[in-house]
């Protein structure tokens, strides 16, 4: 164990993300934004639930989905959420190097997730499950694709933040940015838990 935080830097506040008014605004604003995002995904889930049995001439969910693969990507994304927690804990202790390393691990896991999702989509297209096949396929690609786009945005965002912290250091301007990107990452993770349940598990059994 390294020395406790208050010995490292007396100036470093307990919650650096909320130490300035700008930081507090950023955090509350971001939570509000996630409230809107929850409605966005809620509507997409409702659409998927309404249309998921309308498979037309295309393959059904039970025929398409391969749970071992999905379980693997789920594990990857859950672990990436954990690593982002480690990054924030390091940030609170002002251990810049550890924080950056954990963020890099998070980004790498995000890339793994994206790579496997793209592979999964390509496989489905080969099996005749394209965006235009049926109402089920359209709503599947829209819901899961929206989530994937969020992961891609998050990966790009956190990468930019890593570069910024390297250049400008960790301070009361950069700390709130890192903090909200971690909240965003957890949100993506929670959405995926619902996708795993509603899309994949329910698709397999019902």
């Amino acid at each position, binding site marked *: 164990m390294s020395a406790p935080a208050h010995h490292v830097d007396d100036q470093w506040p307990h919650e650096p993300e909320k130490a300035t008014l700008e930081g507090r605004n950023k955090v*509350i604003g971001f939570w509000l934004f996630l409230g809107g995002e929850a409605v966005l995904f809620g509507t997409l889930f*409702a659409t998927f639930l309404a249309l998921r049995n309308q498979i037309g001439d295309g393959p059904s969910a039970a025929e398409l989905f391969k749970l071992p693969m999905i379980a693997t990507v789920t594990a990857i994304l859950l672990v990436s959420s954990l690593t982002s927690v480690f990054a924030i804990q390091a940030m609170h202790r002002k251990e810049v190097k550890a924080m950056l390393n954990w963020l890099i691990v998070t980004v790498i896991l995000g890339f793994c997730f994206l790579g496997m999702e793209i592979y999964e989509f390509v496989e489905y297209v080969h099996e005749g499950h394209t965006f235009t096949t*049926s109402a089920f396929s359209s709503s599947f690609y829209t819901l899961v694709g929206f989530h994937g786009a969020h992961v891609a945005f998050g990966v790009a965002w956190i990468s*930019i933040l890593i570069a910024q912290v390297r250049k400008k250091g960790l301070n009361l301007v950069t700390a709130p940015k890192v903090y909200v990107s971690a909240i965003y990452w957890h949100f993506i993770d929670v959405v995926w838990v619902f996708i795993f349940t509603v899309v994949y598990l329910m698709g397999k059994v019902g």
Partner: protein
Amino acid sequence: MAHTVKRHRGIMDWLTTVDHKKIGILYLLAGALFFGIGGIEAILIRIQLIKPMNDFVDAQTFNELITMHGTTMIFLGAMPIILALMNVIVPLQIGARDVAFPFLNALGFWTFFFGGILLNLSWLIGSVPDAGWTSYLPLASVDYSNSHGVDFYTIGLQISGLGTLIGGINFLATIINMRAPGMSFMRMPMFTWASFITSALILFAFPAVTVGLILLMFDRLFGGNFFYVPNGGNVVLWQHIFWIFGHPEVYILILPAFGIISDVVSTFSRKRLFGYSSMVFATVLIGFLGFMVWAHHMFAVGLGPVANALFSIATMLIAVPTGIKIFNWLFTMWGGSIQFTAANMYAISFIPTFVMGGVTGVMLASAPADFQFHDTYFVVAHFHYTIVGGLVLGLFAGLHYWWPKMFGRMLNEPLGKVTFWLFWIGFQLTFFIQHFLGLLGMQRRVFTYLPNQGFDKMNLVSTIGAIMMGVGVILFLVNVVITSTKPKNLGNDPWGDGRTLEWTIPSPVPEYNFKQTPLVRGYDAWWKEKMEGNTEMPAAEPVGSIHMPSPSILPFMMSVGLFVAGFGFMFAKDDFGNTALNFLFGNHLIAAFGLLITFGCMFLRSVKDDHGYHIEPEELEQKGVKA
């Protein structure tokens, strides 16, 4: 640190401003522009209906007019004028120097503006949305609307809706975090409370319609099957998504009007608002119930008696908190020394007019009766009583009331009163008679009707009323022009009876709002100090250097990027008869270029720190606070 940031002048100042008061004025100008366009569309609709079998416009143009009238008035006319008042007034009422996110505030305005411009460019390009403002499927599908009209609707509203959503988040964060010391939630003026609840409704309602619009866009542009029945799509799904947004939207429109009326009536009755806490509670309750009633727009779809009964009851429940508000306004006036200024005339006339809209609302909420009223002029009369007789009267009241604070000049009062009577009588002439047209069976959205069904004279009266309203609006513009030539010589509190913090600072407001953050000691903070014989607010801080955010062109550029991308996606499959253009659009290069601008600007914003600049105490002294 001071003045390291260049301050722009002229047009660049307006393109780069992050000052909430200037952004408010931009919203007002843009709102007035779109309100004018929507108003002209309304007059054209009424001219077409002035007599039976009229051929002033053809059926297609009529469909385009009603679609664009509804869409423009709701999304591009009413919303920005509300946001204009919220922008200028809310930070002042809570004693803040700025909003929580000045940069995002500018971004919200510009995305809204470019979305609206994109939608209205459809008139110039010649394929106009024509599937009604609700854009029901399958009418709005490629099979039945194969021009670009509905694409303008889906993409324009997505971009402008994004701006509104950003505005909503900004006001929530501002009101939660930026209140002056002592300004607890239960001391906030009613307009701020209404803005708070409205912003929450925006936050939870707009993402739903964004998804709906995206799904419709995917269906139309990329061959999706969400609403395409042969491949398993479901057209009722669109109606659910649209109205889950659409019903909260009408409360997004009316709640700010409730807030304005509360402040205006209280000021010009020289009395504390009656039942303040019940007003707050009623506002919150209306906001909450607003999400529970969407299916009352779908009684005739066939959701079954249980669903219809539940939504019927939920809808009628809203009459309770609304009734609380109506009585509170009446009791506020009771025993007050009422001044009939133009602002107060709009506010007082709002009360009976809105009650009429509310009563027809309860009639429509009764599902069996709705089967008779559905899609007739009775419905048209109902929602114009709530939106024009509610919101627009409220907005006129608010504009007259806060005009001196926004511009430092008082609108001409006698002319304001003439405008009021013209507009108000015109309004009643136009819409009162439409209740009876509807009950007689005249369908809405029909471009003409046969003679001798009892419709002829009533439609004539309605059209005369509409023209009177148009003249009223023109008179208001004349008033604005006359006023703009007068000198700016108003004091802090030009009405003399101001109750809230915006009346403690100069008119127009300096860029830093408050030289010293005020200390709030009770509800109606300024009135309380006046009653205790004080001539200014107690300060919560010594005079010091004030930090200001830097202006930025990035919000404007981001919105331009979205605008370009919107066109890129829309015309990707068109044949321009020009290889270069076909190549650029067909490969989505234009769309990619637009998105690149937007994301590039986001990147710049993230990596470039905004240090802002400081206004030093000496400069505050030089500018001088008016005696």
